[in-house]
């Protein structure tokens, strides 16, 4: 069994929740999302984010608008759609549930 793989899978599973959650603070572009995620060690490399953002956008959880940047290429500013906010609430609830049940089990067996 590859332990690294499992760890990465665990992180990837909750990555969607984190992205939605970061965006609930307001609209952000990819680098800002990355800063938050990398700062909290949710992501190690940036590449993982882009396919995920595209999928969330295609699932109508996110929308974006273009904005010119003085320092570089135009930026895509992402924000939550109403549907995205609903999904975020659901995911948050299930995450809390998960944390409670997981810690119950793991604490008992420590």
């Amino acid at each position, binding site marked *: 069994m590859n332990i690294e793989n499992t760890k990465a899978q665990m992180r990837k599973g909750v990555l969607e929740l984190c992205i939605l959650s970061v965006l609930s603070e307001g609209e952000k572009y990819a680098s800002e999302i990355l800063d938050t995620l990398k700062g909290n060690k949710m992501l190690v490399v940036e*590449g993982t984010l882009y396919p995920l953002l595209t999928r969330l956008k295609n699932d109508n959880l996110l929308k974006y608008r273009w904005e010119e940047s003085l320092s570089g290429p135009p930026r895509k500013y992402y924000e939550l759609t109403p549907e995205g906010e609903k999904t975020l609430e659901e995911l948050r609830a299930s995450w809390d549930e998960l944390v409670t049940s997981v810690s119950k089990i793991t604490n008992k067996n420590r």
Partner: protein
Amino acid sequence: MNKTVSIHLAGTFFHIDEIAYERLSQYLESIKKRFTNEAERLEIMNDIEARIAELFLEKVKNERQVVNLADVEEMIAVMGAPEDYTDAENDTQKREKTYEGQIPKRLFRDPDSKILGGVSGGLAHYFGMDVVWVRLIWVLLVLAGFGSGIILYVVLWAIVPEAHSTSEKLAMKGFSANISNIEKKFKKKIEQATDKINQTDFSDTGKQMKEGVRSGLSGLGEIVQTLVQIVVKFIGFILVLIALGVLVSMTVSFFVGLFMNFTDGPWGLVFDQVTESSWPIWSIFLAVFLVVGIPFFYLFQSGLSLISGAMRSVGKIANLVLLAFWLAAVSFLIAFAIIEGEPRTFHAYNELSKSESFAFQDTLVVKVSSDHQDSDFAQHRFGLIVDKDRHVSHMEHDVTLRLLKSEDSLVQVKIIKKGYEAENLDNKIYFDYQIEENTLVFNDYFLTEIKRVNQSESVEILLYVPENRPFKLDPSARAIYRQRDGDLPYVSFDWYGEILEIKEDLLNCSTCEEAA
């Protein structure tokens, strides 16, 4: 000196040096291949390119500055290996290592690490070995192969191109290997990072030990895998060596055969007589070369495939052409064998006998000689005899001597020549004997033409001796004496050199009894 390329990423212009450009486009290519949905791929690639542009802009202070390989490698370190560009949803099926984006490694001569032609350097890159080992193998090849390694080296020097441009150098070194290296680097980094997390989250050392054991086990698996790979590469290496050796020696002998005049020297005589066919000799050489060489070429190719781990092919058309050549050469040789072999085979068994009678006065002595007096080249080696007319014949030893009772008072010698030849057996098989006073001398060999394939010829000497006539078998006759049905009783070993006599149907030894 490096060429600089202008590119634009998400609408931003960059000057990038060629080697960095190769690396970047290869990286983007391998990411692109990870996405199957066309529309999604386009969008994701645009996002990624925009991010890369941002990262480069941080490095490049002004428009004149050039993005170099280090910048690209740093960018890849931030963005992650192509394997990291997977969405959690379709992650599982793509977890296998995929190196789709790799540049196929090619064999070049390395001008940067050369002593002679850079062949060793190139081979070292190709096989992922240290150049020292390659050079050592060359030395061993030259020593053990009696210099054949030198030919191999010169051939490689001649046919392998030198890596001039940066892209050729990249292909020579196979940046493909670097992708996996980067992947490995990343796994290490992730390990380090998660180790830190582990230390804060679980202070339980027992768990860490368990993990240590687990990673040790997967390490063992990796070692086994690498060992298997090494063995496979080694087999490939041996195949390549064998095939190259055969191909090189065949090519050399083909050209030597073409330009050497076979009619020079003693062998020329043999050669002329054997190949009196109207087929030009080079066509047979060429056919043999193709029939044997083409399979070895494929052996060479599969050896290379084993070493590089990727299928190598000369292309469909070339394969078909080679197959056609091979079939043509095989048909040619079969036709040659049938047409040329036909007159040499399928003849009925034939016998030819000649008799001569002699009236000897004194005791008859029978001797056997194995000397060949008339040989021009006094060589019996290979059973070949060259006579004064420079005609080559073959020496056969299937000669037997039988002893029978004569019906009259004369000594009779009957020579039977046997062979598979329709006519003229007497001319084809040359066998003679001499009479010196009261002595008969037979040769223990006969001469025959070397042209025929199915010979199985033999000579039988029937010696008829009259009753009450004393005669003597010289010990030299032992070698060819045989007793058959209807012959006189067997001449025992110690009767040679003694005086014998035929009494009725039996043999008497008059001198033996005195000795006894």
